[in-house]
């Protein structure tokens, strides 16, 4: 989703619009072939469907969505692992989709990532300090001794005592410690962009708070930008300057965090917000406003992909794909009937007459 391809930087609605984005993704499409039993071609899953966004230097873009919304595929498409089917990713003025081999490797040096499962991304046979050192060695940074020293500094940076943890193996670490090691390795090459895919989701809440504060500190100290992907809306709000909401491969809403959460424009965003458990007992018990599950991405609904679960869906939603519209500064929504506008008159009556009548009678 982008307001205008010619002036893509004006997404935040602030004075940074004259700066160039660090990362500019345009019309990213990623497809996979779904196989049925025996390997027969079962259809094409468009996991990411024409997604565009910018990330400014020092900015954090949060992406929220349910399982299967394509948010992890989006992160991988940005990394070119695997390469997207179509679209462009411009990172520091380099078109990543056109780079090959060592050129791509060196471009990725400035773009690091942290995945959900820290143990899955740490070699169990390696000592912690070697793990942190590896990217330095891979890019031939410094001498063996300077690399070792740098690894110790990095462990210190993420709050692990190098003397105590440097020679341990990943299995001797707790989940939070292992994730810190993964983060130390990710920032070893002083990247300008850190892609975090559910990076704190598996951690206990107290450790999660520590790691989130670490991310904030690194953002300030290293001027890092983040593409922060998570399913937890409150978490994403906490760390992000701007937030995008993803559903079935498309962004349905993107805008400044405060704006998206205070004045959600898309019915899906509203439903997600209503699902967050409240710490106010009884008063605001989360009501499962969203029934059912996302439809299959192999055969997504026509028009708006959310319409099959949307309480406001009308005929137009089935026939016409909603295009992103900027309804507030930097705040875009892809919806025919955003929440700031009255619900379509025909919606309730036309789509669910029986249940509406039943409710009226009951």
């Amino acid at each position, binding site marked *: 989703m982008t307001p205008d391809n010619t002036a893509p930087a004006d997404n935040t609605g602030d004075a940074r619009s004259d700066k160039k984005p660090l990362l500019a993704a345009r019309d990213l499409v990623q497809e996979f072939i779904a196989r049925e039993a025996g390997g027969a071609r079962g259809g094409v899953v468009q996991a990411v469907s024409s997604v565009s966004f910018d990330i400014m230097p020092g900015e954090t873009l949060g992406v929220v969505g349910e399982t299967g919304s394509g948010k992890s595929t989006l992160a991988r498409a940005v990394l070119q692992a695997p390469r997207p089917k179509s679209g462009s990713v411009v990172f520091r003025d380099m078109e990543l989709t056109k780079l090959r081999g060592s050129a791509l490797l060196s471009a990725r040096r400035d773009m690091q990532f942290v995945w959900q499962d820290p143990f899955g991304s740490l070699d169990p046979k390696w000592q912690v300090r070697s793990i942190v050192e590896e990217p330095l060695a891979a890019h031939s940074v410094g001498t063996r001794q300077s690399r070792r020293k740098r690894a110790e500094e990095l462990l210190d940076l993420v709050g692990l005592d190098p003397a105590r943890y440097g020679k341990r193996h990943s299995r001797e670490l707790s989940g*939070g410690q292992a994730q810190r090691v993964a983060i130390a390795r990710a920032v070893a090459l002083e990247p300008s962009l850190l892609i975090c895919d559910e990076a704190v989701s598996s951690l206990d809440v*107290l450790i999660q708070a*520590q790691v989130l*504060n670490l991310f904030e500190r690194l953002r300030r100290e290293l001027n890092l930008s983040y593409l922060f992907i998570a399913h937890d809306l409150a978490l994403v709000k*906490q760390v992000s300057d701007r937030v995008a909401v993803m559903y079935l491969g498309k962004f349905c809403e993107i805008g400044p965090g405060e704006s998206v959460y205070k004045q959600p424009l898309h019915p899906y965003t509203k439903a997600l917000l209503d*699902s*967050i458990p409240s*710490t*106010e*007992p009884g008063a605001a018990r989360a009501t499962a406003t969203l029934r059912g599950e996302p439809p299959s991405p192999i055969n997504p609904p026509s028009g708006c992909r959310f319409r099959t679960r949307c309480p406001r869906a009308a005929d137009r939603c089935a026939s016409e794909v909603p295009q992103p519209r900027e309804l507030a500064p930097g705040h875009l929504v892809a919806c025919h009937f955003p929440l700031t506008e009255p619900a379509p008159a025909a919606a309730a009556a036309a789509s669910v007459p029986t249940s509406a009548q039943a409710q009226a009678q009951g």
Partner: protein
Amino acid sequence: MSNALLEVEDLRVAFAAGGREIRAVDGVSYTVEPGRTLAIIGESGSGKTVGCRAIMGLLPVGTVISGSARLNGTELIGLSDSQLRKHRGSDMAMVFQDPARSLNPTMQVGKQITEAIRTHRKVGKSEARDQAIELLRLVRIPAPERRFSEYPHQLSGGMRQRVVIAMALACRPKLLIADEATTALDVTTQAQIMELLLELQRDLDMALIFISHDLGLAASYADEVVVMYAGKVVEQAPAKRLFGTGGTVKMRYTRALLDAIPHLERPAHAELPVVTGRPPDPSALPVGCSFAPRCPSAADDCTAKAPALAEHAPGHRWACWHPCENGATA
């Protein structure tokens, strides 16, 4: 508490590991009444799961369990495995975090439910099938007849967890323990499953224990909350007393858990209030309060002597020498 369904008293669980004794659960007591929901909250390793597994008889051989857990007056601790098996599944059932691990990937989900039914009851195959379809309907799975013959991989995570809940409910247990049953699910699915559990609880008059690390979930759904730290209960109170406006959290630890939850009101990039450090090594617990090394208001008496859990206000127990004033932020 004569009307309690489950009475747990001074439950202790110890493992031997590398010649050292690990006291995973160290004197835990609580009761659950029919139709009520108890939330057991704590970090990884706090003993919340181990305690419930001890009640269910799901711990490995060699675990030393002492204390008492009475279900409907029947003492469960010390029962032989075959005696426990009669209760497990029929009187009490447990649902785990990862539904994929609870299901056999090579077996139709409906068959797995009929298996659960026929293990405990003498019913014919076709009758068991009807009951299984009824159970799938009970957990709000659309088109249950069709879903019956599907395999776990054909279902979404939320649907799988519904199937696991259907299996757990096969014999209409009086007590259902949900161990992080919604943790792996999306927030919208989590809300759906929690609503389902509460509806089922109401309809079947079950007692529900849910184990979670998420105090927000406890605030939203529980009647009673037990907060565990390093194998001990550190605070226990009705949810209404702990949370919300006028909430009176007394333990710094509970406060810290509550403060660490990301919430929408906090501005972006705000520093989260954190407690440093990690829970203590369960084989080398400190002499005094286990939380003292991480506690912002720890004093000399905290490291000298462990505070006992005591009822300081009606229905509200805590174990702290220096409790928070009126639930003030630490």
